[in-house]
């Protein structure tokens, strides 16, 4: 192995408008090996989607200030020009979204759009590109794929569209797939099909995946490693088992306790009090301190250090306590 496929160091993202500055991502570091699946778990406003979009430079340049260092497969992402970005997007890194209707152009057929992506990145003709499109639709198990090649996005059901979007994203065999809540809008019986499909394709293509979700169960289904985000930082990371069973940071502990699962009827949920932080007025010290039951004066004034709990298992907390589940 020649080192990590993805390396993110000190990533910060600011959104500036006339009256306020939003600190969406406040120093995120992580590395990802080829073929590894990282689940990025967090609630709305935690910075998980913004981190993902920064990796693809999808944030509006005029309002966004990016800093830090992002390297993906040898590309220095934050310094790339538009031309280099066009090759990078879709070729090296691809992304799938929650809403497939927004990923497809409604006036072109699904087959044409996949073929266009292939021609854009590889030196092949139209017939060969259509052939690849068909192959991809079959690969994501769209029934009667040949007929679906000429279908418009609105003619497909939700689960089918999601499969077609995965086909589009993987058509050029990217080394890294970014998945932004791709199953959140789907029904339960369809969601599990898509998760299993992604797991299978990830193995087959040997690609790395960063999977953003707010759903603990979904993260467990797909991830090798997990990272929990809060207030624009990764507060705990480790193997899926570390984060779920040997949780050390009070925020993921609270998140797990407040997630309803199994037979909890009749018990009172241990909700985390308060609401997520206002990203335009981040507290000094630990961002979670205002909601944390363990917080003391140190937590409220000093940014927490990284506590190593086990190889690969870290929590950013002044007083991490492993709670074994």
């Amino acid at each position, binding site marked *: 192995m020649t080192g990590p496929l993805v390396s993110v160091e000190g990533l910060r993202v600011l959104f500036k408008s006339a009256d306020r500055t939003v600190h969406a991502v406040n120093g995120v570091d992580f590395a990802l090996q080829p073929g590894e699946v990282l689940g990025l778990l967090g609630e709305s406003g935690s910075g998980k989607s913004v981190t993902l979009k920064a990796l693809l430079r999808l944030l509006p340049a005029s309002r966004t200030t990016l800093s830090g260092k992002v390297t993906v497969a040898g590309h220095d992402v934050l310094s790339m020009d538009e031309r280099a970005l066009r090759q990078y997007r879709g070729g090296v890194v691809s992304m799938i979204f929650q809403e497939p209707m927004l990923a497809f152009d409604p006036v072109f057929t699904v087959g044409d759009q996949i073929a266009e992506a292939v021609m854009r990145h590889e030196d092949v003709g139209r017939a060969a590109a259509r052939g690849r499109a068909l192959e991809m639709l079959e690969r994501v198990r769209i029934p009667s794929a040949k007929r679906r090649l000429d279908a418009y996005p609105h003619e497909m059901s939700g689960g089918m569209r999601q499969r077609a979007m995965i086909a589009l994203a993987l058509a050029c065999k990217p080394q890294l797939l970014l998945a932004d809540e791709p199953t959140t809008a789907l*029904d339960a019986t369809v969601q599990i099909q898509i998760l*299993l499909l992604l797991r299978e394709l990830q193995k087959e293509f040997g690609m790395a995946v960063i999977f953003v979700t707010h759903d603990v*169960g979904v993260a467990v289904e797909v991830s090798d490693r997990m990272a929990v985000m809060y207030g624009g930082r990764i507060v705990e990371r480790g193997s899926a088992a570390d984060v779920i069973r040997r949780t050390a940071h009070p925020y993921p502990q609270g998140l797990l306790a407040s997630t*309803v699962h199994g037979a909890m009827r009749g018990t009172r949920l241990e*909700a985390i009090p308060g609401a997520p932080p206002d990203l335009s007025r981040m507290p000094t010290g630990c961002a979670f301190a205002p909601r944390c039951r363990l917080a003391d004066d140190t937590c409220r004034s000093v940014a927490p250090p990284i506590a190593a709990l086990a190889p690969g298992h870290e929590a950013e907390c002044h007083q991490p306590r492993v709670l074994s589940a």
Partner: protein
Amino acid sequence: MSASIPQGIADEDIGGPAQPLLSIRGLVKHFPIKGGVLNRTVAVVQAVDGIDFDVAKGETLGIVGESGCGKSTTARLLVRLIDPDAGEVLYDGLKIGAQDGLDLREMRRHVQMVFQDSFASLNPRLTIEDSISFGPKVHGLGAKEAKARARELLQQVGLNPNLFVRRYPHELSGGQRQRVNIARALALRPRLVILDEAVSALDKSVEAQVLNLLQDLKAELGLTYVFISHDLNVVRYMSDRVMVMYLGRVAEIGPVDAIYGNPRHPYTKALLSAMPSMDPDARTQEAPIAGDPPNPINPPAGCRFHTRCPFSEPVCAAKVPDLAAVAGDAKHAVACHMNVAGSGHSRTAGAA
């Protein structure tokens, strides 16, 4: 009693504790799809297609199902936001909308609803206080009393009235707005609250707070809930009984432990095993059913689940299964040919 709304006929318990607070009989709602030059009806969405169920006084009935199963249409029919094509809704024995029953205005004092979109359900130009006191004022409460009630309700849902009465919806977080919607729903002191995906848009940490609040309010005020959600975990946590819907019909209904512990309908089983695992060492290996839910415009004939059912046989496509009690548990009913001896299915209860 200056601070109360004039008494109506349905303020007291009419039929006694044994009479269901809500009885639904043969409820049908089809939405026509118009098209073509002459704007004729070209197709019909069979959103709700003949459902019966009761909601007992003081219980929480959970309704689960995937998109297009008719759960939200059912909720809207219950509060008569839309009119049913057939069937009736009885509130404590009184037929809603009938001459000798309960008129709509009166019914809505007793039956209130909370929606998923906390922002869209509040008027952006009214302060929180005005939104909450609007209903009571319409129903005859004086302005001063209505304001006092709004403050009292805010306190009850865990928002400091001094901080919130003057605010507008956009100044609140999603969780706070949903608390305001709950306060508004309670402003007319209803007996039944219909919660249609009321916590689905909230973050998990906030969802837990609101679920705790709903449980507290229910105990404090003796409410009855119809709790609609696509989240099986949350429905299990909240409900006494659970109704599973599929494409406009009831697939299975019963006590929460029976539905989750001993599901009888293949669809209920599939739905339960489609829940993501919470154990990294026991991840799901196989999807319980393939394909998407069919379109409710042209639902399959017979049992509507037969196109995705692993046990489908010719009888399933030919005949609609009745909702019938499971042997040994009168409260647990399932609409499946496998449950009925002599239905023609090879796996009937007797044969297995």
